[in-house]
């Protein structure tokens, strides 16, 4: 079972829609409450990353009986130093985004905390 959701960069009004759609689907499947809660956070943070940093991207949810996979793909500037990006509080979000209360440098760390396995691939200057 696979679900897809397109996300546009800078579209803050719609941020959270993919996470909400995934949550609804997982409730229909009857996933455990704690699993759903973690999946919502992972999906939302990934969605927000695309909104803040990328031109456009997509989120894919893959549902299996024993696990979930959330795949975020986007076209954006890329992450030059992944280890640095994983540090709590490290952010490359511009000041005007931070003024909105986003871009606190907790996105990737939160995703990492809420998932059992996190893989990141990035290419710069594509």
């Amino acid at each position, binding site marked *: *079972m696979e*679900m897809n959701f397109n996300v546009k960069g800078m579209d803050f009004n719609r941020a*959270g829609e993919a*996470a*909400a759609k995934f*949550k609804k*689907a997982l*409730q*229909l*499947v*009857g*996933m455990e*409450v*704690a699993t*759903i*809660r973690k999946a*919502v*956070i992972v999906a*939302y*943070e990934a969605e927000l990353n695309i909104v803040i940093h990328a031109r456009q991207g997509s989120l894919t949810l893959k*549902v*299996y*009986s024993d696990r979930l996979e959330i795949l975020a793909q986007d076209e954006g500037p890329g992450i030059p130093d992944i280890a640095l990006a994983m540090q709590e509080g490290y952010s490359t979000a511009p000041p005007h985004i931070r003024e909105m209360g986003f871009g606190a440098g907790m996105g990737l760390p*939160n995703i990492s905390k809420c998932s059992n396995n996190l893989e990141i691939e990035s290419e710069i200057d594509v």
Partner: protein
Amino acid sequence: MNNMQKYFHSVMLDRDNCKGCTNCIKHCPTEAIRVRKGRARIIEERCIDCGECIRICPNRAKLAITDSPERLAEFRHTVALPAPSLYAQFGPQVMPRHILGALLDFGFDDYYEVAVAAHAVSGTLREHLSRPHPRPAISSACPAVVRLMQVRFPGLLENVVPVETPMEIAALLARARANRERGLKNNDIGIFFITPCPAKVTAVKQPFGEVSGVDGVISMSAVYGELLNRLDSPSARVTASLSPAQGVGWGRSGGENHAIMNHSLLAVDGIHNVINVLDEIERGGLRDIDYVEAQSCTGGCIGGPLVPQNPFVSRVRMENLVKKLSRRTPELPDLPADPNFYRLKRPILPLPTLKLSHDINRAIAMLEQVERISGDLPGLDCGSCGSPNCRALAEDIVRGYAETSYCVFKLREKLQLLAREIVDLSQMQPPAMGREQSGTGERQEKE
């Protein structure tokens, strides 16, 4: 009570008045209503008794089941528990003590003000917030919001403060007082909450804790006329109100927060606004907030479906009353100091009513079908099929509660195909027919 029935609901359908329109299905926050055979049907396990359908129904076909005041006769000693919102339903000169006098004149033997219990609960909340707790803590006071979380936000139930509602605390204190001061046995005491909403009725008949201490719930609107007439009645006893300003303020949105003070507090009212805030919390937001006061009705309890007064008028009345009361030093009765007295006796558990199947593999396959069918439906969410939107119809089809032909657009498509086929068929003729009137043609073909 209600061993026979799995769910009790205060919100019910009046079959005679329901025309089968689709107003209610589209406003229900848990998608708990369907129209079938020309009438609305409430899916019991999903209904949270918020009363949105009562408000929206143009035909007044949604009712709240409450207890009749005649039930007072069942008990030797009756105690009224007036919700704080009751104090805002009357004119500007009417003070709580007048309303309490009218309640006694109406037939109650005693009263215990819920606003007094609300004051005590505020203290427990302050104490709870000063210790480590899941952030943000969420109020347990509005039963419609708690049921909403059981159905749609089970992951947030651990954030709900494990504290009893002012109504339950008032019932406990009222009973203890009747035991103590009058030597009455529990069976002789009837405790009646005067309610602004149906959710409180359900909270009593099907409580979150083990049992409710409330014996009956009477609609505020049902006694309003009686109370209004008795405000100036010469037989009304002069009595005293102990309600402090902070406790009375619980009757409107923001009141809990005002009573708690000194924390980072958020108040949200209106069930659809509450859903937005809970979504945000579920996504990991609002960690900077200590406490969320969430109320299903716009304006808080004064906006309840069973209040007689316009909520904007009662809001002004309440603000003025709170101002007046805050100039006085309250003379509160002795309230239990032990925080455990105010604790919820058991945790609030999820009500997983949304899942498609108990078998997860089957549920995944069914979800796939839901996705496919909903992509195939027109996406206009017109509601003519009796489900609140196209996606819900797709779910209903997969669950076996509906058919694709319930969709008028799908039906039309099918009819068009069928019509074309009929035209095609009508032009086909069996070989024995279709001889041309005259001329050449087949005759020349050969004998």
